[in-house]
């Protein structure tokens, strides 16, 4: 791991960085938690937290963007989605989607979001267990969350429990609830850059890499 510089300005977090539609769970027992890989895979699998940590690890400094017009660049640690997909075995990912389901809570249920599989792999989507060198706080998705950095946050599930490879491009929570786009691609807009404490207009869609 590199020497990490803590993300600046985290003391002024946009509310949606704290927002957790389906939780957060009050506690998670890592001895029983599993990430289920199901659906159109050659091998249905269940990864424990230890299994995840034994996979090839990546650390990437990248910017996530919320549809509420803010963004934050942080250093994320985890495994690439492509690694999991390779192990489970998926044929023709260009025709398939990935449905994410959260652990959720008895009171609020689970959160679901579905994304195109091939583009997620091509964008080096990560399954993240740590940020800025620390284990993810529960409000940010402990023990594991997915981030496709080309898509808004609402397409990326915190507190993952299942990844299902499917032919169905299902509406997720915020698309059903409030009419947001199913594709969730980050749009050219002005965003509040939390780590820089300033506004910045980005002229192209997709992952923001220029600052």
């Amino acid at each position, binding site marked *: 791991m590199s020497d990490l510089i803590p993300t600046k300005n985290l003391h*002024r*977090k*946009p*509310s*949606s960085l*704290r*927002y957790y539609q389906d939780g957060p769970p009050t506690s998670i027992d890592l001895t029983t938690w599993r990430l289920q890989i199901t659906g159109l895979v050659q091998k249905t699998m269940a990864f424990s937290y230890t299994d995840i940590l034994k996979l090839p690890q990546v650390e990437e400094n990248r910017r996530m963007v919320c549809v*509420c*017009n*803010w963004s934050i660049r942080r250093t994320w640690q985890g495994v690439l989605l492509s690694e999991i997909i390779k192990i489970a075995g998926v044929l023709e990912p260009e025709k398939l989607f990935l449905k994410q389901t959260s652990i959720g809570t008895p009171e609020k249920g689970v959160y679901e979001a579905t994304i195109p599989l091939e583009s997620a792999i091509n964008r080096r989507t990560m399954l993240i267990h740590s940020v800025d060198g620390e284990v993810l706080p529960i409000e940010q998705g402990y023990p594991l969350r997915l981030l496709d950095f080309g898509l808004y946050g609402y397409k990326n599930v915190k507190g993952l429990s299942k990844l299902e490879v499917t032919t169905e491009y299902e509406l997720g929570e915020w698309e059903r*609830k*409030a*009419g*947001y*786009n199913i594709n969730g691609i980050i*749009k*050219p*807009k*002005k965003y*509040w850059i939390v780590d820089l*404490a300033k*506004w910045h*207009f980005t*002229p192209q869609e997709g992952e923001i890499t220029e600052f």
Partner: protein
Amino acid sequence: MNKLHQTIVIESGTFLRGSDDSPEEQPKKNVTLDSFAIDITPVTNRQFRTFIEKGGYQNSKYWTSKGWEYIQKNKISMPNYWLDRNWNQDDFPVTGVSWWEALAYAKFVEKTLPTEAQWEYVCKGKHGYVYPWGNELPTLEYANFAIDCDPEELDRKATSVYAHPKNKSNFGCLDLVGNLAEWCLDNASINYDWDLTGHNPIFWTKEEEDHIVKGGCGLHNEEFLRCASRDYYPASLRDNLVGFRCVINEITKF
């Protein structure tokens, strides 16, 4: 009732649209608008209730074909936050309405939605102010907004359209910025290069594509409160970020 009731007539005029503050607000251009009338306040829940009670959601004549298809497919018969006390008080601006619901309501009251240029002119006034009230930076006394995009409470709520009397434009419109952003007729554009004439401009692609909203909301910070600031969302958006007000373009017959 006279349709000009609770509206302000804006005489034909020219103003400098855009700003130097962000690329999507450029190029700046002198824009000339014909006369129109605009609602003094955003459409409130009390006003919108009439549309519901008169069967507005059940009558296709108020809807475009795509709007009608959208509410039928999604079984929509009321705004998304209609039953939520944080958003449904009589004098709160109606929210949780898609662009299509806003347009249908406007047709119901024989009005339409403002173009982005109309909205910005009403906000800047004759003096070209940065904010509706002038050039002083906003405080929470002026508007319902979130410093650093960090609302004081996660469980947000709207405020009455009359709650911030200082949030009044030179023309006399209330609650133009903060609280809820407001749907405009225009589709989204990433700058104003498309506007070659500067006369009654409107950017239009397809109704089902993203539409401009202006004014910012209780989730966004002061940057979105500038009259020239721009944002956009899908026509289908029904989140508690956006409301609307209406305009009448043919005012000579009243």
